[in-house]
């Protein structure tokens, strides 16, 4: 009762269906090329248009190559999917940020950086990592393609109201501990189903101290605990980030918006269905060893004795073993989880003045053209190039390997992405999820390394 989640949700209720779900109004629908074509087909089959086309923003990201984007995509199936999104957006009159244009990038990176995702909004996309936008103080969640069609047709969705959970992380984060480590720590504690059925509000001094980039990373990973979404009440950090961005309110509208946004917080008397508190001092740089994101441990730790054998067999690992010092083959910096400017700054801070290890293939993929632009403005591209790293062009890339960026079977990757499922980064690939700092440490040493030793 009287939680921020209640406030945002309740203010978007169009109607309540008796013994059924809520008809919820949606402020923003994002569409990418993978989970939208069948929704557009559905509209055509019903002979209807999008009810509010101006609230819908489309951009390809999953299939986009990370090199030579000015040339046609080589894989004809990927090309068709990307072209289909452009055609559908034109046919239905929707906003479209096409590949190889300055506004393009990973949808969950672009939405916030363009000022399209704002506090108090309801935001959906056919993508489970839509929870990312919760960092802006919005109720944002992933949906299926039938639900995408539902929102296109009616600007509403039918959903049962989730329960509410507050996770407070109090205290000061230690050296080398990032938002990614907080998330991996929470997953280790809660497992991948610990927050299923809930919407999570992240709070506490450690969370409040995070930059917007860090908050976006934390909220991004809510789904990996099973939560439908996760968000952080907007504050000065949020307003400062949004101000001046392309689609953000301007002038008087800005003042009015901020006045309203300042009311967006859980009441002192708020009652959550579940509340958890963690001490920031307990969190160390983390790494996963298994085949779901909940199978994590401190980077210096040993694989638990009770770890699922099927997972360890797939990973080629043994219970009790340490990962520290284990040789790795690939490093991936990027994805909607860690493809933002701060992630590149963190990576560069470790590799500066060092050299990429010879046994490592590194893919550094900015989350958007705007991030790439900022990397160049800050001269990070030079720092990275001097250390032997090449920056690729924006997209989802090796996070789910729908383009050509696939980790080969049996190879180990330290990856800043969000999932270490079997085959996620390419058939047979073996993923260690970690922060950009830990990924950078592995990239220059060639083995799993505690980043604190290089800071």
């Amino acid at each position, binding site marked *: 009762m009287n939680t921020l989640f209640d406030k945002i949700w309740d203010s978007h209720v169009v109607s309540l269906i008796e013994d059924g779900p809520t008809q919820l109004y949606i402020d923003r629908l994002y569409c990418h090329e993978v989970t939208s*074509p069948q929704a557009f087909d559905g509209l055509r089959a019903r002979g209807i248009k999008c009810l509010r086309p101006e609230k819908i923003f489309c951009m390809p990201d999953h299939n986009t190559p990370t090199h030579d984007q000015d040339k046609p995509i080589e894989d004809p199936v990927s090309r068709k999917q990307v072209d289909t999104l452009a055609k559908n957006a034109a046919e239905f009159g929707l906003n479209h940020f096409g590949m190889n244009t300055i506004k393009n990038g990973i949808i969950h990176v672009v939405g916030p950086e363009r000022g399209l995702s704002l506090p108090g909004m309801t935001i959906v996309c056919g993508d489970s990592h839509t929870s990312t936008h919760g960092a802006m103080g919005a109720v944002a969640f992933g949906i299926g393609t039938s639900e995408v069609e539902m929102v296109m047709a009616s600007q509403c969705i039918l959903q049962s109201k989730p329960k509410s959970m507050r996770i407070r992380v109090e205290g000061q984060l230690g050296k080398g501990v990032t938002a990614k480590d907080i998330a991996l720590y929470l997953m280790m504690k809660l497992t991948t189903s610990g927050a299923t059925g809930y919407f999570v509000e992240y709070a506490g001094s450690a969370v409040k101290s995070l930059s917007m980039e860090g908050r976006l990373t934390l909220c991004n990973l809510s789904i990996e605990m099973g939560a439908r979404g996760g968000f952080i009440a907007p504050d000065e950090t949020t307003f400062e980030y949004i101000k001046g961005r392309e689609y953000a309110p301007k002038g008087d509208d800005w003042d009015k918006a901020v006045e309203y946004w300042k009311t967006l917080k859980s009441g002192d008397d708020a009652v959550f269905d579940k509340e958890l508190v963690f001490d920031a001092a307990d969190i160390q740089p983390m790494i996963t060893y298994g085949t779901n994101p909940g199978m994590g441990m401190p980077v210096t730790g040993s694989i638990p004795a009770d770890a699922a054998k099927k997972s360890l067999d797939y990973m080629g690992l043994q219970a009790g073993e340490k990962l520290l010092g284990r040789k790795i083959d690939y490093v991936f910096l990027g994805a909607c989880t860690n493809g933002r400017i701060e992630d590149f700054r963190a990576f560069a801070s470790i590799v500066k003045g060092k050299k990429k290890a010879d046994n490592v293939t590194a893919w550094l993929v900015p989350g958007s053209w705007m991030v790439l632009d900022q990397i160049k403005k800050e001269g990070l591209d030079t720092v990275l190039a001097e250390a032997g790293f090449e920056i690729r062009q924006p997209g989802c890339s090796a996070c789910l390997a729908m383009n050509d960026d696939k980790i080969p079977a049996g190879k180990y990757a330290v990856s800043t992405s969000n999932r270490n499922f079997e*085959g996620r980064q390419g058939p047979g690939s073996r993923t260690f999820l970690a922060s950009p700092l830990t990924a950078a440490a592995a990239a220059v040493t060639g083995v799993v390394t505690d980043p604190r030793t290089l800071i």
Partner: protein
Amino acid sequence: MKAKFDIITSTCVPLPLENVDTDQIIPARFLKATTREEKFFGDNLFRDWRYDSDNKPKAGFVFNQPAFSAAPSEGVHQILVAGKNFGSGSSREHAAWAIAGYGFRVVISSFFADIHKNNELNNFVLPVVVSEGFLAELFESIKNDPQMKVKVDVPNQTVTNLATGKSEKFEINGYKKYCLMNALDDIDYLLQQKSKIEAYENK
């Protein structure tokens, strides 16, 4: 796609694994389709568990075992029984299309991931949540007799292990039950709500 639900009595296919994620149900490389061809997705259901890299069936996977390899048909293998936290991870509805395309009409588990559960319902596949005990006993019954059947009675919201005779009530809200029993989807409903939507927007 749209199919009316009433009572389904069928043999089952067991998948006693926990945390089956949607990347396993349908790997990402099969998401490039721009149409909803059920057969394509059904053929690739659990692709990397079902086939090796040379496209040869893996003998160990349940779909390839003689007792469970027959494609679903009336009364046969229409029910998938899976370990807890089924459908976690990616929101891809292609996972539900693959399950429907293969021919399953019901998935029984003790726990489903949220988004996938909705996706199944939106594709007229019924997710049935049972207790841990019921699920464990059901796996045991199937192990003892792969021909045993389960009865899923949607009007009465009951699921019965016909080998033991044990029955449990399952949850489904009245609205969704009405939709399933009458083969209606949410969009059919929402398209009739335009005045309410406009009233909300003009508030």
